[in-house]
Structure formats: structure tokens, C-alpha cells
């Protein structure tokens, strides 16, 4: 765990320091949001889930005597559990696409925004064809650029297992994609 996180964890665990938790929020909110949004593909739901993730993280950190080895690991773990709950509880809402359209309509350069969005959509669609575990490992490795060790902690596996998982995920993605992406 980075030393800054160690210090923040100390302040939160020992002093229940909310401002230190605010700094944790600043450090990780974008990362957690990207992961959740990638999984749910719904802005509103992603925002709700991220809020819940941080609230639960605070509760987990300040509960005794549970050990916290890594703030990042804890956040991702809670996020994954929340995502599973969303999958179970809610169906996708049809207004998802309307909301995305509304966002795009407000962009200054609509054409460029549309092109960027479509590229991302295509990319994500390819990855979404994979099973959950493969999606996660690709996202964490290639988007968030986490190390194998960090991914292992998040997924609750060991390093070699993650390497194997990653290799298989890439292979599967290649087979799904079919034609070369270049």
C-alpha cells in the first residue's frame, strides 16, 4: 500500500477522521467510477453504486477489528459486491440510451463526441461478450493499469492465477473479435 494510503488509513481507523476519508475519496473516486460504469454502462446507477461503495468502505474501515490491507483493494472488492447486487436487483432501464443521447446533444462538437462515443461503445461491446471475470481482468490491467499483484488482491486470487486468467481473456477476446482490430 502506498505510504500516503497508510497514513490516511491510520487517521481513519484511529481517529475516524472524515477529512482523511475525503482524501481517499479524491484519490479513488474516478477509478472506482470508471470500473463501475464499465460494468453497468449506466451513469445514474454507477453514481448510486459509487456513493454506496464509499459509504460502505467507511463503515468497513472504522469497524473493529477488521484488518484492511489496502484501501484500493477494499474499494474494488466492495464495488464488485455492489455490482453483483445491482445485477441481481435491477433490470437495465430503457432510458439508459436516452440519457446518453441527452449528454451527447449538449456536447459542443456533436460529431466528434458521437465518433468517440461510438468507438468506445464498440470497444466495450467486444469486451462485454466475455464472461465477468475476463472483463474485469482486462479492464483492471489495460485500462486502470494495475499490477498483477494488485489485480490478484482485488479478485481474491494469487498472481499466477491472474496471469493465466489474463492470457485466457485476451485469447477469448481475439476469438470473439474475429477480424484484426488494426
Amino acid at each position: 500500500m502506498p505510504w500516503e494510503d497508510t497514513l490516511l488509513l491510520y487517521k481513519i481507523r484511529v481517529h475516524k477522521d472524515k477529512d482523511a476519508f475525503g482524501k481517499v475519496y479524491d484519490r479513488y473516486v474516478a477509478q472506482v467510477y470508471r470500473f463501475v460504469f464499465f460494468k453497468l454502462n449506466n451513469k445514474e446507477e454507477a453514481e448510486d453504486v459509487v456513493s454506496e461503495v464509499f459509504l460502505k468502505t467507511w463503515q468497513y474501515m472504522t469497524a473493529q477489528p477488521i484488518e484492511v490491507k489496502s484501501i484500493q483493494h477494499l474499494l474494488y472488492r466492495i464495488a464488485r459486491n455492489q455490482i453483483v447486487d445491482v445485477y441481481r436487483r435491477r433490470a437495465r432501464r430503457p432510458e439508459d440510451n436516452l440519457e446518453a443521447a441527452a449528454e451527447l446533444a449538449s456536447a459542443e462538437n456533436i460529431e466528434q463526441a458521437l465518433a468517440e462515443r461510438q468507438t468506445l461503445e464498440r470497444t466495450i461491446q467486444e469486451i462485454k461478450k466475455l464472461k465477468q471475470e475476463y472483463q474485469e481482468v482486462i479492464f483492471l490491467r489495460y485500462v486502470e493499469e494495475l499490477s498483477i499483484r494488485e489485480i490478484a488482491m482485488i479478485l481474491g486470487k494469487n498472481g499466477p492465477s491472474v496471469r493465466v486468467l489474463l492470457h485466457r481473456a485476451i485469447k477469448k477476446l481475439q476469438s470473439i473479435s474475429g477480424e484484426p482490430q488494426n
Partner: protein
Amino acid sequence: MKDAGMDNFLSQLRRDVGLLNPDESWVRENKIALLGRLRVAEPAPSATSLWCKIEETISVVVSRQVFAVARQAAVMLLVAGVAVGGWIVSASASQNSLPGEALYGVKLAIERTEVSVAEAVGASEVAAIKELDFAARRAREAKKSPRREQKVVALQSLQQNIASANKRLDKAQEQSPEQAASLAKVVTQKTDQILESLAADNKSVAGTVQGTAAVSQEVHAAEKLIEETGVKAVKVLIANNGDASEVKEVVEKKLENVAKALVGLNQDASLAASTSLANGIAGQMSLVTGTVSTSVPVLPVVAPALLGATNTVAVAVSGTAPAAALLAPVVGVSTTSASGTTAVLQDVQVIHEKVEAAEARLGEAKSLIQGNNLLGAIEKVAEVYSIKNEAKQVATQLPAPALPKIADPVTLVTTTATPSPLVTATGSGAQKSNK
């Protein structure tokens, strides 16, 4: 798909990931909402023993399994140490100690350590909040302490804690306005709480609950410092463009609290006035003893207009001159008690006038709040505090409000009897006793 193709694919994903980022405005609003929820839901942490704090600190950097083993070893060493004849200071036992007690020094040392550690890790705002928590602790100690010296020590330490928190707020404002704003919010809440706690323990204005002027002076000095710190914190909030509705609420709360204090001051002053007058009359009535050798009926002493009397307590006595002469020197005007009562009433008048002036300023502050001039409003609050403290200074000179007991009831008999030690009735006149 070839590997090069896959690399491009994944690179594309990485490039596009910015589109997955959250809205900045949502990030900001969500943070405020989240921290607000935590502050409401989480009460202030209760005092934990030094050992619990050490355990938590170590557990952050060392795994619990390792720590559990180390702890066992440490316990065995400690037991061995006791067996050899050493002694162990119980940090948790010091938590309830009061000034002058054996473990009080340990308690203060632990507090200093906590502040030092917070400073050392660069969390000066945490250090400031710690100082305020310790100030609240000093207020509780002052309440619990049975002796005057203990109370004075606790109240002086409280002032040091507040002064220290004040300096850290200044430092935060210089170094990081954003941190200063979040610290200022906490400072306003905690200073209000400490003021309420002090006010509850010092209800009586005319003489203190603690019973001495020295303690009362320290309480007033502490209140003044806390009020100044609270006002400064609100100004910091305003200067850092804090949420206007939140700042407005803070200023309104201050107005409400000081208005309550003024009402209490007024009531206590009026009570002091009425009991002082009653004391004066009762004191005089208790001097009337023995018998009067006259057949003239003596009317009871009447003390007109308790609250309206400004000079003397007039006595209405009817009867013949000898009777009046008998009674007047004893039950009537006594120069000492009259001037004492006068002084009290004059002081009460001054207090009432100051409270009125303070209430007028409060009205002005409310208008400024309605006009969204929060800086003007908090400056008015500072003026109100100043006037209130002047009134309290006058109030410390008022006597205690408790009524004295009347030891000897008035006994007047209209029979011929042996001369009283006070008066001698001879013939048609009466001679004063030279007692």
C-alpha cells in the same frame, strides 16, 4: 485477431477511458453529501484507551497475526515485570482523573502526544480538532471537580487548548483555505458545544455554582475566548465562500444561543435584586426581639415596592411617639443595609440596560442575515458578545440569590414586662439603648 491488433484494440480502450470518467460536478457534490452523511451518522469518537490507539496504529502497518503474536509476548514481559516488583501506569485509569490527582499528568501527556503525532504527520487540522475536544474535556473536569483550585486549573487549561486551536485555524487559513473552511465548520460546532456546557455549569450569575469569584472570572475568560474563536471560524467560512445556506444556519445558531444567554442573564439579575431586597428586610426583622412596654399596637413592618424602592426601606409604624421612637432605630432604616441594597439595584439596572443594548444589536444582526450580509451579521454577534460579557462582569458583583433564614421571629407583646436589653421605657419618653 493478431497480437498487434489486440495491442491496438487495448490501446484504443485506454485512450477512450476518459469518456468513462465521472462528471466533476457530481464528484464534488457527492463528496459533500458523503462527508455530511458521515458527520451526522457518526458521533464523536468516544475516549479510547492508549492501548487501543497503539493497537490500531500498529495494525495499520503490521498484519494482525503478527501483531497478535507480538502482543502475547508483550503481555508476558509485563507480567514478568510486575512479578519483579515494578509498577505500570494504567493509561485508561488516567482518563477519569481530575486536576491535582495522581494520574492527571499522564492524561495530559497522552493528549499532548496525540496532538504532536497529528502535527508530525502534517494533519494540523486534526490537531486543532483534538485541542477543541480536550477543551471540552477540561469543561467537564471543571464541573466534576469539588475544589476551587481544581476548577481554576481545568479552566485555565481549557483556555490554553482554545488558544492553540485558534492558532491552528489561523495557520490553516494561511496554508490551505479549503482545509481551513472544513476545519472552521468543525470549530463552530465544537465551540458552541463547549459554550453550552460552560453555561449549564455556571447558571447562577449572582455568585457562581462553584461559589467563588476566582472560578467565575476564569469561566468568563474562557467563554470570551471561545466566543472569539467561534466568530473567527465563521469569518473563515464566509471568506472561503462556504455554502451560503450552511453559513447562514451557523450564524443563526449563534444568535439563538446568545439570545438565550441574555435572557438567563436578565432573569438572574432580577432574582438577585429581589432576594437582595428581601434579605435586607429579613435581616432587619430578625433584630426585633424582646418586649415593648407599651400598650400601643404596633403595626407590622411593611416594605413597600420591593422592586421599586431605590433608597431606603421605609417603615410604616403608627402609634404614639414613644412607640415609634422605640421601633424606628431598630426596624427602620439601617445605613449599611440600605446602601448595600442600593448598590445591588444600581448594578441590576446597569445589567438590564446592557441586555437591552445587546438585544437591539441582535435585531440588527437578524436584519443583516435576511439581507444576506453574513459578515455584517457575525460582526454584530461579536458586539453582542462584548456587551453580554460587560453585563456579566457587573453581575459577578451581585450577592448570591439564596434567602437567609430568619433565626428569631419578631415577638412583640403588649404587656408590661421587664425592660428589654435594647430599650428602656421610662415614663413618657423612651431612651435609646447604647448597645
